[in-house]
């Protein structure tokens, strides 16, 4: 299925192109999705710091200002207040997209998201809803250090009322965004800077990747890896390497961590009995902890071996390149975790 594929190399995507599938990069897919959303609904508008810059938020909003004028607007550096502003615009039926260049700036919006946007529908007895989409980007490397490289998605997990998506392929980048635009609730989308250049098949028309549906990226019977965002690519690479040793890994990508599709994860674990979880944030309190807890709550006998998590250590990101190297897990760490789960 081209739509579930994860293209690691250029050759992978060329294969699809030869089969007549159009391929785009992750950032092009995001750009196209926003363009189509703006085009199809006059209530849609985009706002963010530097959204109309020459760079266009790493290219993701390039050209949109020229095409849509006032509906693509630069924003003062006033994240919390503006999150409230756009939430209320959403509350009266508009479809705002708020963009943060980095996921690190999302905590500035946290008060408005967790105390207001997430609860408005509930508190108003269902009278008001907040169809807000917030994009933010996880980055890493080059001494970005502790305030410019965080994956902040876990921070929002314990706020009921928010939906949280982490697209890992160009297809999902477009499809999850377009679903978020149709969703009547606040949806946070975490993109990963290191995926921006990755290429894969993306249909030209508008389509939806439903929120709350996981996907099996690779079938296998020995171990389940649940991976999100950039770790999906790493998990596929690990699985390819392990396949050469005769180990068949199943890779499941939840795509959204709220709502979390436990059904697909449970089906996989009931087949393999072993679980490795990969994340792009610190370990404690991550979505992985939630998966393990839900497994333990519903059917602890499914697990035949201890679970292993591959995520950032519970530390702020250090600046020094040697420490960054030690800080971020890689494909080898996933392989080691799978082997540990099998031993």
């Amino acid at each position, binding site marked *: 299925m081209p739509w579930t594929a994860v293209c690691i190399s250029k050759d992978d995507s060329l294969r699809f192109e030869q089969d007549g599938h159009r391929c785009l990069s992750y950032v092009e897919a995001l750009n196209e999705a926003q363009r189509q959303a703006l085009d199809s609904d006059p209530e849609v508008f985009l706002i963010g*710091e*530097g959204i109309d*810059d020459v*760079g266009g938020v790493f290219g993701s909003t390039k050209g949109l200002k020229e095409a849509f004028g006032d509906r693509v607007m*630069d924003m003062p550096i*006033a994240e919390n207040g503006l999150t409230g502003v756009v939430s209320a615009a959403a509350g009266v039926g508009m479809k705002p997209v708020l963009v943060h260049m980095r996921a690190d700036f999302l905590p500035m919006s946290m008060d408005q998201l967790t105390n207001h946007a997430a609860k408005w529908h509930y508190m108003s007895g269902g009278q008001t809803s907040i169809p807000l989409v917030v994009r933010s980007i996880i980055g890493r490397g080059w001494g970005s250090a502790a305030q410019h490289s965080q994956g902040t998605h876990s921070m929002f997990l314990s706020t009921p009322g928010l939906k949280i998506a982490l697209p890992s392929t160009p297809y999902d980048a477009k499809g999850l965004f377009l679903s978020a635009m149709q969703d009547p609730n606040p949806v946070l989308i975490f993109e990963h800077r290191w995926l921006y250049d990755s290429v894969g098949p993306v249909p030209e028309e508008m389509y939806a990747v439903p929120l709350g549906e996981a996907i099996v990226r690779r079938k296998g019977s020995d171990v389940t890896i649940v991976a999100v965002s950039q770790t999906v690519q790493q998990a596929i690479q690990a699985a390819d390497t392990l396949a050469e040793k005769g180990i068949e890994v199943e890779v499941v990508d939840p795509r959204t961590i709220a709502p979390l599709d436990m059904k697909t994860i449970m089906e996989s674990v009931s087949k393999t009995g072993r679980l490795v979880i990969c994340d792009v944030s610190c370990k404690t309190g991550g979505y992985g902890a939630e998966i393990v807890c839900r497994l333990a709550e519903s059917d602890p006998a499914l697990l035949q071996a201890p679970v292993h998590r591959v995520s950032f*250590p519970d530390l702020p990101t250090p600046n*020094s390149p*040697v*420490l960054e190297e030690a800080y971020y897990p890689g494909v080898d760490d996933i392989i080691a975790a799978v082997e540990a789960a099998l031993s």
Partner: protein
Amino acid sequence: MNTAEIPRRDLLETMVLLRCFEEKIVEVYGRQDMKTPVHLYIGQEAIATGVCAHLRKEDYLVTTHRSHAHCLAKGADPQALYAEFYGRVDGCCKGMGGSMHPAFPDLGIIGTSAIVGGGIPHGVGTALASSLRGDDRISVVFFGDGASEEGTFHESLNFAALKKLPVLFVCENNGYATVSPLFNRQPNPDVSERAKGYGITSYCVDGNDVEAVYEAADKAVKQLRQGGGPVFIEAKTYRWKGHVGPGEDWKTGARDREELEQWKKECPLKRYLAKLKEDGVSASDFDALVQKTDAMLDAALEEARKSEFPPTEQMYELLYRKGGC
């Protein structure tokens, strides 16, 4: 102010230090071994220089992502900064913070936030401590025009005015936040007007004129040391380089080259040199100063590069401060 009271030679030397320090970064950045995002201050040197000339070592200073010059003007060791940028253990933060998070507690720089507006309350906090303790330290907090859009700006100014705290707010209005021009973000280009609304004494000065900054800061610091409550200085200036990195924005199409060339004519160093000609400072004196400074920085940079990388354990050890029960 009587011009004889102005330490002209010191001001010139500091500006040269700040400029040469960053030009060295521009020179070596292409080697790609300084792996940290650098936000350069070139073009704005008169501000850090004119303000910090009034500070005592024990006074507190709060800076931003664009931090190098403020630290240097307060007396930071260039080598400790370079080593930090190289991620070495001899860096001012042992390689943990990089260019955006310097700390020199001995110089009253307890840490630096790269979250826009994040540092403004910190300057108010150190001033609150001074006020409660009754020591005579003052605090100065530098930030950009962009930071004045954050809630922290308004919340901090309000509280500082309410409690008459000894804090000097210095807004370096360089007309841009990343590449967004001021008029895209603020209806009133004079940030100091907002400080007046809180009843704070405010000055708006030419930020490329080091003596204008020096004189405003002189009045401000006198007021602070006498317990007269917070002061606000807005210094209008221009940043020559891109928001981050050694490049220039006209190359990416983010700004007009014309605009930059116009501002280069207002170079704070060149302007000051022209003025100092009256005092007999010649172009060759200036060149000699630049060469001497550059040689010192060359040596500092080389020493910094020779420093060791930190051990991996360091990142685990530093999570919590040891002690307590």
